[in-house]
């Protein structure tokens, strides 16, 4: 007996240590008295509980299952700056027919406060819940918790009913405030089989079991036995309504997380959502009674097959666009690079991207040819089609827009895909083409097209590919100066190549705006001549330059500032540490050279020591060198980034490179009287 009691006590004490799902409206005095989060003592609020229970309810009207999401959240406000947490907005789909819309039901919210030692609760009144029509597809249910003050506990529950079971909404265990306890339960009927994707660094406690359930299915049956011979053999008979009780098993899984810290925002990422701990279910197959298995997705080959077989992808890709027969004929004798340039240029010139992303065409390529505008799929599939017709080994590559998050390679699904680019394979290497931006050159991609991986669609095969960011920029600047009293004056030459040229044209638009951008508070550029701004070649600039504030006369010496090429150089990496990789849009290799004529009667007393610093594996290298040649002091600064994705283990090294460069750029060259 004693043993049993000990065991029972042990079990209870183990349960108390982990979090437990609270009962709605049963807020305790301890929760109201709590003064700060134990996860982060300086957080202005935290989720005491964040939970969702997902179940499938049989809908007799539609004859199928609805997915029911029962949400429950309990939030503690520590400081009044957390008022943003007290204003709620729930988005739901409300397009098309009423039966297609999602519905929010049973919304209840309370604010709990402690007044003179007693718990007071204030209920959210229905008249203070607003339904806002965002656009023809979405609505927002909005409300503000009443009576919120420091120390309040807010509690809300609501049910979302949806008929869409292909993708179960993503549930986040992590948020931008701490989460004390999060629980996600999902009960899936045996007819459905989902792949489960979890992501993030938070440890999840998982348990599963089988449960039993049933639903009643009613249907009409035409009773042929009741045909009336007298009515002349009419087939129509009495309609019978039958119903059947169907038993089924459910797979129920519970995911729990305790003491989840807030996700820390970091710069140089595509989106922080990539890193918040979450769970997502995607439908793999269904097997209804007396039916065979219907697979939805399994491999990228399946996705490729789906795309190829669709009128809105394969159908468009493989059609014949006779309007281009002449163009194809005209490139027949060109070499590979010229072929690509010509076709790519033609598509960019003739079509404008309408701003929409997808994995399917919208109105179709034929329609785009007429109207001149198309979505990302229409433009780049036509490009692939014509490249293939010209004899090149071209394919569409599907992926995901960078700010939508990483493509989840492990779980093939069509819903993740919303971007298409064209790739051409030449001797085992890929050239990337995206015709949605008229300023791009072959083998450069705009920021939105970047992702870690893509899938190359080749017939009904989908090949996973590491997306090798092709973007490479080069910029050289040469300042040839002489000292003129307190100013420096002379000439300036600049060459901007490849991706750097694209960025320049994209940023400034017209040439005159680019020229205006050269001037700073300390430097004036005059008689600017710019070559090739308005075409696709490298941009060249020559001009006169006058710079003030870089020369100081002290103690019969001349002090020259190094920041002529980059005023106010600052280390962009301020964080102490970093959890996630750094993402850059392009590699670059830049050289700045400053040459200053040594004035009569002076010699070089000292130059700063040279700096040659790199990260392990030479991902980022910066070299600053000084030399005195032919009566001129020269400073050369070379910066090279050789990789666009840098793992966090290199972060400290990157930060240190910039720290040292920042200090070096503040040093001066000293000239003394002979």
């Amino acid at each position, binding site marked *: 007996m004693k043993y049993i009691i000990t065991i029972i006590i042990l079990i209870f004490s183990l349960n108390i240590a982990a979090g437990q799902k609270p009962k709605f409206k049963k807020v305790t005095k301890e929760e109201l008295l709590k003064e700060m989060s134990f996860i982060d003592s300086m957080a202005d609020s935290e989720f005491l509980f964040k939970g969702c229970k997902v179940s499938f309810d049989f809908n007799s009207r539609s004859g199928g299952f609805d997915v029911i999401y029962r949400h429950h959240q309990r939030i503690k406000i520590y400081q009044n700056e957390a008022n943003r947490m007290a204003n709620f907005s729930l988005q739901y789909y409300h397009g098309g027919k009423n039966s297609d819309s999602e519905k929010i039901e049973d919304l209840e919210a309370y604010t709990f406060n402690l007044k003179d030692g007693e718990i007071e609760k204030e209920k959210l009144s229905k008249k203070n819940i607003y339904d*806002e029509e965002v656009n023809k597809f979405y609505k927002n249910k909005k409300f503000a918790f009443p009576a919120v003050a420091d120390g309040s506990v807010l509690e809300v529950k609501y049910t979302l009913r949806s008929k869409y079971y292909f993708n179960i909404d993503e549930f986040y265990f992590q948020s931008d405030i701490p989460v004390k306890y999060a629980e996600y339960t999902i009960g899936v009927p045996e007819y459905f089989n989902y792949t489960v994707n979890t992501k993030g660094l938070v440890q999840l406690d998982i348990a599963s079991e089988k449960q039993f359930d049933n639903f009643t299915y009613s249907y009409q049956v035409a009773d042929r036995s009741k045909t009336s011979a007298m009515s002349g053999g009419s087939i129509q008979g009495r309609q019978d309504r039958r119903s059947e009780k169907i038993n089924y098993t459910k797979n129920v899984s519970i995911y729990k997380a305790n003491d989840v810290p807030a996700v820390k925002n970091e710069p140089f990422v595509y989106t922080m959502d990539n890193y918040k701990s979450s769970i997502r279910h995607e439908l793999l197959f269904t097997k209804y009674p007396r039916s065979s298995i219907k697979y939805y997705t399994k491999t990228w080959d399946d996705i490729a097959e789906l795309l190829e077989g669709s009128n809105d992808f394969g159908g468009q890709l493989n059609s014949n666009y006779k309007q281009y027969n002449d163009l194809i004929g005209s490139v027949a004798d060109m070499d590979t690079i010229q072929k690509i340039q010509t076709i790519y240029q033609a598509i960019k010139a003739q079509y*404008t991207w309408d701003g929409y992303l997808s994995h399917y065409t919208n109105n179709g390529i034929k329609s785009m040819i007429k109207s001149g505008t198309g979505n990302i799929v229409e433009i780049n599939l036509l490009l692939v089609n014509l490249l293939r017709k010209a004899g090149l080994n071209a394919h569409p590559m599907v992926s995901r827009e960078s700010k939508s998050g990483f493509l989840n390679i492990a779980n093939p699904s069509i819903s993740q895909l919303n971007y298409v680019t064209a790739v051409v394979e030449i001797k085992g290497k890929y050239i990337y083409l995206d015709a949605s931006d008229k300023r791009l050159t072959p083998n450069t991609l705009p920021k939105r097209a970047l992702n870690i991986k893509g899938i190359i669609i080749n017939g009904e095969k989908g090949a996973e590919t590491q997306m090798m960011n092709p973007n490479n920029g080069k910029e050289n600047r040469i300042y040839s100066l002489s000292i003129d009293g307190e100013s420096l004056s002379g000439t300036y030459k600049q060459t901007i190549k490849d991706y750097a040229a694209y960025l320049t044209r994209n940023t400034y638009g017209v040439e005159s705006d680019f020229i205006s951008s050269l001037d700073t508070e300390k430097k004036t550029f005059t008689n600017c001549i710019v070559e090739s701004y308005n075409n696709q070649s490298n941009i060249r600039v020559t001009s006169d330059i006058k710079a003030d504030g870089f020369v100081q006369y002290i103690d019969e010496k001349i*002090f020259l500032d190094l920041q002529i090429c980059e005023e106010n150089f600052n280390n962009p990496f301020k964080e102490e540490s970093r959890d996630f990789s750094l993402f850059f849009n392009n590699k670059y290799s830049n050289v700045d050279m400053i040459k200053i004529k040594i004035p009569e009667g002076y010699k070089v007393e*000292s130059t*700063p020591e040279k700096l040659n610093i790199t990260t392990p594996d030479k991902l980022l290298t910066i070299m600053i060198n000084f030399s005195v040649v032919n009566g001129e002091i020269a400073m050369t600064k070379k910066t090279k980034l050789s990789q666009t994705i840098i793992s966090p283990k290199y972060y400290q090294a990157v930060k240190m490179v910039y720290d040292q460069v920042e200090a070096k750029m503040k*040093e001066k060259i000293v000239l003394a009287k002979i």
Partner: protein
Amino acid sequence: MILTYLFYSITCILPIQSGTIYSEYQPFSKTLDSEYRTEEGIENNSLDVTNIPLELLIDAHAVVRYEHKICNILSKDRLQIVVEKAVTILSEKGIPSGDISIYYNGEADDIKDLKVEILDAKGNRLTKIKKKEINDVSSYDGFSIANDARRKTYRHVSNSFPYTVLLSYKKESNNTLTIPSWYPVWQTNVSIEESIYKINSNVRHLTIRHKSYNIELYGIKIDDQKNIFEAKQIKAIKSERKTPSIYHFLPFVRFSPSSFHYFDFEGSYTDWKSYGKWMYDNMLTGRGELPPALIEEIEQKLIPDLSNEEKAKIIYDHVTNSTRYVSVQLGIGGFMPFKCADVYNLKYGDCKALSYYTQNLMQHFGIEAIYTEIMSDREYNFDFDTELAGVDQSNHIILCLPNDGDTTWLECTSKNNPFGYTHSGINNRKALLIKPDGGEIITTSTYTAKENLSVRNIVLHLEENDGLLIDFKNEHRNLKHERMRPFLDVQKSKRDKYIKEYYYHQLASLEIESYHVAMNGERAVLHEEGRFFTTNHIEKAGSYKMIPLNVFTFNIPDKLKTDRSFPIYVKDYTSDSINITMEIPLDMTYVAGKTAIRSFENEYGKMHSNLIYNEEEKSVNVEIYFQHNAGTFLPESVNNYNEFVQNLRELTGQKLIIKPTE
């Protein structure tokens, strides 16, 4: 001498002869229809791009070929706006000028006969935009959790330029409270070929007052008899920085009806007094009952023999600490505040609700408090127009406490605004008191340069390896306190990050050894104290070292381009006083720099600097003082502006130089 720009204004009151009924109004565009339309639709080439006069193409990304707007007041509760517009887009930057963006109230307004067509360079029709391509979205104002504002939007994306966007629609409403203003020129880099606005009224005894601004400069014609306003051949304007608000120099006309219908309300007014009376009687009466529990909460905090100001402060603190700002603007709720009992229960409200709530509490305890309409804006001091009363001149409500001549202004929506501090969104402008006997224009208070002062006392210590320790004790008053407020208000766990980002350009490698910030007891004074450490601030020059004195950001403005058309605007007076002391290390010697003493003054402000080297104590002390003057200055004075900025940059960018002792 500061010459300020005058508003060019014509006040006009146009009574319509009683007995005249406009039963058959002429839509204005019909007379022009024949020029542009044929029976089949737009066909002939008057919208051909080659018809645009050359001077209208200079600096233009788009050209408004015509904009014809008619406001038909059909009855006392039915208003109709008819719009026909053609905009030619010349280049990529002009695409937004062709945007369709029609605001309307989802509850009260209907948009009818909406037609959008795209024409090519010759003026021939390319496409007709289908109804389903035009989006209807809720017009999120950025802060309300509910409002009925909606918007029809469409942006045409085209492959080749130029092209012309044709738009026509009718908007009808039962609300006749506002007659839309006329803004013929309202974007930079857009030229105007023709813009015409006409107002027709079908209503007896209805007077439509109007007032026009800045029209002399643009050759605008006004026909007072027929209420027709016309602008033609206006060249594109380029944007310039630091101008006054465009209401100060672009032409526009405001209108005001003498009577109106709005949701379920009717009213009439002729001036601010009668406008204020209508507001008071219809919007502010009968909603002020205070829950007994609330009264008791306040009474418990009031000790006997408190002055009115002390009582007011207790009430104000109680309201701002127990409520929060939530905006709900539905229907008449755009003008009518929540009942006080509702604010008490919900513990939230918008500026109207919270001001009304505070006002009723003040009045209950014998303190005079007046509900005040104001145009809140932190960039400009927007004034109410003393001559034309109308409903669109305010966007915010505050309270005015006459306080026996020591007028106090209260911002009731913020916990972070000290009692009686007139913040930069509401200072120095004409506002409207809504009193029981009617409205009254009054000017809000503002602060002088001396009152908007930052004082910084800094001691610098050079550490080994060129590290720099910065000890500081700063005090910021009024407007300066407002700018530094985020340091106090930011969430404590985010404060260090905030400080490092704020000083990023001055002190990039910053370590915070200690930092305290608090309000100083006086009305709006913020006190800062602490110790920072930075490693990359000192500049090495051979064996010399240079220590820049700008250890804290001074927000020096940028210079302005010298080819300037519009005035230069500086909103508020501010001043800064900095005292920096640095000990010279024993093995180093101070090197005298170029100008130890500098002073400068012009219409934009003044400054001076004083450096004293104490040889005995081996320390240097630098005093810097500078002041910015507020005002609106002639564009020709831009060189003086740049000279002021240049001097200020040099003054604050001084560096102390030391070298090893020989």
